[in-house]
Structures are given as structure tokens and as C-alpha cells.
């Protein structure tokens, strides 16, 4: 994996070729110490969530395999509805998943770490 400096000093980690991310089907990807669930929407936008259920204490889970609809994700195990843009869980459930910014450059996808 490559790591390089971007403007602003954020560390970018390469997580794969753009072509390896199919539309509306998530993938699990490791970026440093965090497992991400990466999604490519039908309008081309890409988002990454931390790949843990928002109520991870109760449900360990995984999010990458959920059903993607517009900018929402239906979690694969408990069917919680999560907004991919900011990780906010929709009613009636509540909570929030950590999100990670992604950068697409020259056909490659990078995740921004802290």
C-alpha cells in the first residue's frame, strides 16, 4: 500500500483501483488500523464508513454487504438505515457511524486518515 502526502497534510492511503468498486455493492477494505466499508453510489460518488455496526457493543456486524439505495445503506444484518454521507442512523434506530473522506485520483481510490 502507498502512503503519500496530500495538500493540507492529510495522510492518504491507497485502497484500490476505482474499477474494483462496483456500483451499489460495498467492499471491505483495510486502511491502516481501521476496517472500512467502501461504497460507490449509482451517481458515482464514493463514501467510506467504519465497517462496524453503529451499535457495535450489541451487534458486532459488518456494513459493507448492505443494500445501497441512493445515498442510504440498509445494514446487512439488522436492516438499520444509515446515511452514507454523514453516517447518521435514520429513525426509528439511532446512532452514528464514523465516516472517512475518500479521494479518487488517476483511477485509484485513497482514504484520508487523521
Amino acid at each position, binding site marked *: 500500500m502507498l502512503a503519500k502526502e496530500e495538500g493540507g497534510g492529510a495522510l492518504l492511503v491507497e485502497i484500490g483501483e476505482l474499477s474494483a468498486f462496483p456500483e451499489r*455493492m460495498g467492499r471491505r477494505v483495510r486502511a491502516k488500523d481501521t476496517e472500512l466499508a467502501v461504497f460507490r453510489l449509482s451517481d458515482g460518488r464514493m463514501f467510506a464508513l467504519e465497517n462496524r455496526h453503529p451499535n457495535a457493543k450489541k451487534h458486532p456486524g*459488518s456494513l459493507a454487504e448492505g443494500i445501497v*439505495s441512493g445515498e442510504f445503506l440498509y445494514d446487512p444484518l439488522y436492516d438499520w438505515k444509515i446515511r452514507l454521507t454523514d453516517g447518521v442512523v435514520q429513525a426509528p434506530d439511532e446512532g452514528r457511524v464514523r465516516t472517512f473522506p475518500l479521494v479518487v485520483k488517476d483511477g485509484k481510490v485513497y482514504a484520508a486518515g487523521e
Partner: protein
Amino acid sequence: MTNKTKLVLIGNGMAGVQTLEHIIKLAPEKFDVTIFGKEPHPNYNRIQLSYVLEGSKTMEDIILNDYAWYEERGIRLVVGDEVVAIDTERKTVRTAAGLEASYDVAILATGSKPFRLPIPGAELPGVIGFREIADCEAMMDAAKRYRSAAVIGGGLLGLEAARGLQQLGMDVTVVHLMDRLMERQLDAPAAGMLRRELERRGLNVMTGRKTEAVLGEERVAGLRFADGSTLAADLVVMAAGIVPNAELAKASGIETGRGIRVDDFLRTSAEGVYAVGECVEHRGVTYGLVAPLYEQGAVLAKHLCGAETEGYIGSVTSTKLKISGMDVFSAGEFLDAEDTESIVVKDPFKNTYKKVVLRDGRVVGGVLFGDASLSTQLTKWSKAQAALTPEMHGELVGGGGCCGGGAAKGTGVAAMADDDIVCGCAGVTKGTIVGGIREQGWASVEQIKACTNATRSCGGCKPMVEELLKLTLGASYDGAGAAPAGICGCTTMGRDEIVAAIREKRLTHVREAMAVLGWSQPEGCSKCRPALNYYIGMLWPEDADDDDASRFVNERLHANIQKDGTFSVIPRIYGGVTTAKELKKIAEVAEKYEVPMVKFTGGQRLDLLGVKKEDLPAVWAELDMPSGYGYGKSLRTVKTCVGSTFCRFGTQDSMGMGIALEKKFERLNMPAKFKMAVNGCPRNCAESGTKDLGIVGNDGGWEIYVGGNGGIKLRGADLLCKVKTDEELIEISGAFIQYYRETGKYLERTSDWVERIGLDAVRAAVVDDVEGRKALNERVEQALAQLEDPWKRVVDSETLQETLFDKVHS
């Protein structure tokens, strides 16, 4: 921060936290909250400890508010520490560990503790109460090491503890001081019936026994009674009542009696200090049940937030015994008095007993045993002191007495008024639930639970909530609480309309269907997309453009996702018949990929559990066996008995026929999972009665049973027909499967489907109409011709492995 009112809650149990939930709802920003809890746990559902003991729930299941809940609301939570002093002058509290906190408002919610009999030996190890998670853990631990247990106290708590210990494998005796069980809730006839039922289940019951001493040297060894007799026991549970925890209040100079004295607004004698729950004494009464506590909490919350409330005036209590499979209920005044009369309906055949107590023609209470379906009405009537009408009389006398009326009778929710309480624990009315179903689109018990807390505590109102869903949603409610079958919030179209439109407009892709049919959410949701994908594939087997992104994870990845994100792999073992060589191969794969668990499934297959997602393609490649579809809405397994091949009773070759049927119909998409069985004789060792399609061989041919289910809703299969030859059997099976595929709602099992469209209609289409049967078989053949093994498809495709299974590049 500083202008907020400082609220200190002493006690992190159900009453206190429920009060706080009310407060947060009414005035989210008003208070800066600190909670002190003695137990080292977040708020959990104490009532359901008996389920934990019984094994039907885990500790995790009964957590009501996890730590995140406190964190998200900015509540300071201190657990495992106990408040030991309240300075009502300085308005501060101090804990055992030396923490101090000042308050503007303090709420005492210290609950109660088990009453320990003041007898010799009561402090011996092995003598415990039944109150906290720690008690539960002690009981489970004791059950592993010891054999016999005695429970002192034949009330609600004692019986639940006893039943739980019995479930854990102990030999249990209930010792009760009074001459009948649950004397505070049941009259003599009901108590007698309860005793007989418990004894029938293997519990020993002793009544009229006064315990004088706990025997034992280093650990409890038994009990001695006032009459001189003894009972050996390795564990003694004291469940002879509860005592309010009022010491802290008393030591702090707050007025106490049996409990902490409060007025109608839950105010104690100290300014700014309130009390709620089992620790209080209100108008001379203490309560040990959940509903009154919640009623108090609601009043206190309103009072503290400045909302209007008339105050708390006491509760009419009702009781339900939470032992699986036993309906025991009482409400209000249940004993006969000089000025009361009762209506009693006793049915020794069905072992039910109902009694309604009347004073001046008005209902003041009653008892139900064996059939508690009238419990809501009885509570309601007793609370309102309703005058008995002929309708009420009819419900009481007629209800449950005749057979076949079950469906129409239900739980009586239709007759309830909007402000009648459905969930007594959380105080949720029928109006709130029905309003939410209509306006917020609530479609499942889970959703209603999440939004209102109904069903969350004891769970006793779940059947009523389900009835309300059925009543309000009509046919679109599927009963299993999973999804409104065929439709969702994205469309107003029903299943049949959608299928007709897909056929007429020749729609072959999910996205196309959602656009053409005017879906309100352009990309649909997790309910409609898998359904649409199924209907399209069923109608156009050759031309459908199967949409992987619209399949549930299990069907997309051809393995069953587990709660930790790993998967289970079940290879196809036709008819459950394998070989030593095949078993060796499975064992080698399991070892190589460090599969944490290998288990036999209920359908006679082997399940490799805990396989990592990225290992799936390699595991399949090395197994080199077809997918067993243990994840699919398709034919799961054909279970078989040994049959005439080896069995001396066998009349037909059930293994051979099972394998043939499994090979023929495997991989076919269906509305829901589909299970089969083939038996070689009517002894039915492979259990045809609980299968979607169950076949029983006899001397002259085969019997075909359909619509059985052993899952959520137990349903015995119906006899569809008898056939003489193997060819007929295969043809009718094919026609049945295809008819179900074409008319079933997505996610509808055959058990519900057969009931919805009727066995006669199925028989007419599949058996009687010979031409129709042929046509159904042609269509099923056409669908079967398109199928290929999904595991092989992935093993052969690098791209699929990379995009779907996260194959990592080096």
C-alpha cells in the same frame, strides 16, 4: 451548562431511568444529569431476569439502555458505587468511594431488596436472593455444580426463580409459608390449578411450611421446618417478598415508613428530594410490580418539567406470571368478599379458569388461568370499575370456550378505545400505536418497540401489538414482522398489481421496474428491491437481468452472514447421504481454513461456521461440491429417512427419491426458503409434517403433504393428495413448486400461503387440472434450465472474487 438544573438520580434501575426518559422527552435541555448505580451494569430489565435464568434470553438481550445511550445524552453515569449519604441542607450526595455531587433535584430510585428471613443460617454461602444480575449468575453457577435447590417463597418471584433453576437442570422444591401458591394474586381454585400444573412439570411444591433454620456448616445443606422435618438442598433462594431500600433516606433524615414516604407528586419530606419506584410508600402502599412504577415515573417527570399532571393516586395492579407456556393472570380485587359476587367459568377439560369479581354489578378484579387472552379487558374493566354488560359477559363466558373462534376473537384489541393502555409497562395506548402505524408507517413490532417502548419490558403485550398491526394494515401485514409482503413505503402498489405490471410491461430489470412503476424513492429500499428482483426472475426466467445489488447479502454472496460478519458454508449433500471420502474432504477444508465450528444442521447437512469472507471462494474451490443453498430463498434440503434400502419397516426408497427431487429442484428461486422431506413409511422419521413439501411412502405409493412449518409459526402440513407412481410424485411436486412461485408473496412461506389462498385452490391447480399441471411443469422446467451453481461461477471468475469477496491484492 451552568444554568441547567442539576439532577442527581440515585439508582440506575428501571423506575429511575424510565422517569429520566420521560424527563428527557419533555424537556431535553433542562437538566444536567448524574446517575449513581450500585450494580456494575447499565440499566437492564430486571423483570426479564427470569428469562435469562430460563435460558430464553441472554444478559445482553435484557439491557434496556446501553452505555452509548447515556453518553449520547450527556448523562454522567457512575456505576459500581453507592450513594451513602444525602445532605439535605447543603443539597449534596456522597458515595462510598468518596465522590460528591450537588443537586437542585435528587430522585431516589433505590428499589428494593429481597426479604431475608431472620433465621439461623441465613448468612451461609449458597443462600441467595433473586433480584440482580449477580443473583442470576450465582444460580447459573450453582446449577453447574449442585443438584438440588430450595426456593423459599411461592409467590411470583419464587415460582419464576424455581422454574428457571429447574430449566437449568436442578431438582427444585418450592417451600411456601401459606397454604396456597401466589396467595396475593390468586384465589384458591386458581392456585390449586397452578400447583398441579407446576407439579406436572416436575417441580416439588410444599405449602404450609414455616422455615425455621438453614442447615449447613460451611455451605448450605438444607432447611429445617417448624414441624421438625427437614429438606436437603445445595442452594437456597430466598424469594419471600421484597423490602423497600429506604435506609439511605432514613439515615439522611427523610421521612420513611415501610418505604420512603411520598405525596401524590412523589415528593419526600426533604425539599428537592423525590422518590420513585419500589422504594416508595405512597398512601400507605408499596408496590413491587413494574406498571405502578412507570405510572409514578410519568407523574414525576411531568411535575419536574412543569407539565400539567393531576398527580399519582395509586395503581390497580395486575399480575402476569412469566413462565413459558403458562397463562396466569390476576387484576385488582380477586378474592371474594362479603359484598362481592363473582362470575366463574371453569373448564376442567381445557384446564382453564376465569373469574370476574363484581361489586354492585361493577367489575373490581379477577383471575385468569390457562387462557389469559382476556387480560387486557379485565385490567381495563377493573380500572374503570365498569358495569357488567351482556357483551362483556359474552366475552367472558364465550371466549375460549368454543373451538374455531380463535382467529375472530384474537386478543380483543378491536374493541379497545383509543386511550386504552396496550403496554402497561411503558404506558402506551392503542391510539398511539394505531396513529404511528397510519402516520409514521410503522410496520413491525420491532419498529413500534423502538418508537414507543411498547413490548420492551415484559413483552406480554406483543400479541396485542401484532393484532393492532394486522387490524390496521390488513392484508399487507405479513405476521412475521419482517416486512409488509410485496409492498413497502416506496410504492402504494400491492404484490398482485406489481406482478401484473411486470408481466404486461415486460419489465426485466429492477431499476427499470422502479422507474416505470413510479417508485417514490428512486432506488427503492431493502424491502422492495429483493422482492422486485424475485418477481422479475420468476416471470422472465430467460430474459430477466438479475440484479446482484438488489439481493440480500446472503443471496449475493451465496453464504449466510453471521453476527460477527463471518459466513457459514453448507455444501450440497443430496438427501443427506454422504461418503467417508466426502467427509474427509470437508474435514480437511475445515482444518485448513481454521473453521471455528462444524455443525450438523436441522436438515441433515454439515455447516462450516465462521468462514472469513475473503476465504469463501477458496473454500468452495477446495470443497468442489455444489452450493447447499443454506442461505437462499430456494430449496434448502430434502431430509430423508433410511427407507427400504436398510430399514426393516421401509416400504419405499426414500433416500433415492429424496436425492432425485433435490437434484431436480435445487437452485430454483422461490418466494421464501423451501424445505422438503421424503419418508419411506408413515413413521415419518424425516418429519414431513413440518415441511413445505413432505412426502410419505406407503405400500401402494406416496402421500404428498404441503404447507407444514416447524419455525416461527408451527403448522402441521395438509394432505394434498396420494399418488401411485414416482412419475406422478415428481410431476405434482413440480407443479406445486411452480404454483407457489407464481402466486406467493415474496418472503411468504408456504404455511402462510396455503392458508391465504386455500388448500382447495392449490389442489385444483396442481392436482385436478391436468392440463394446468402440465403447463406449470413446463414453466418450472424452463426456469430450471437457466440455473448454474453459484459457487462455481465465483470460483471461475477473478473479477467476482475481487469485487464481491474483497480479494486482497498483494
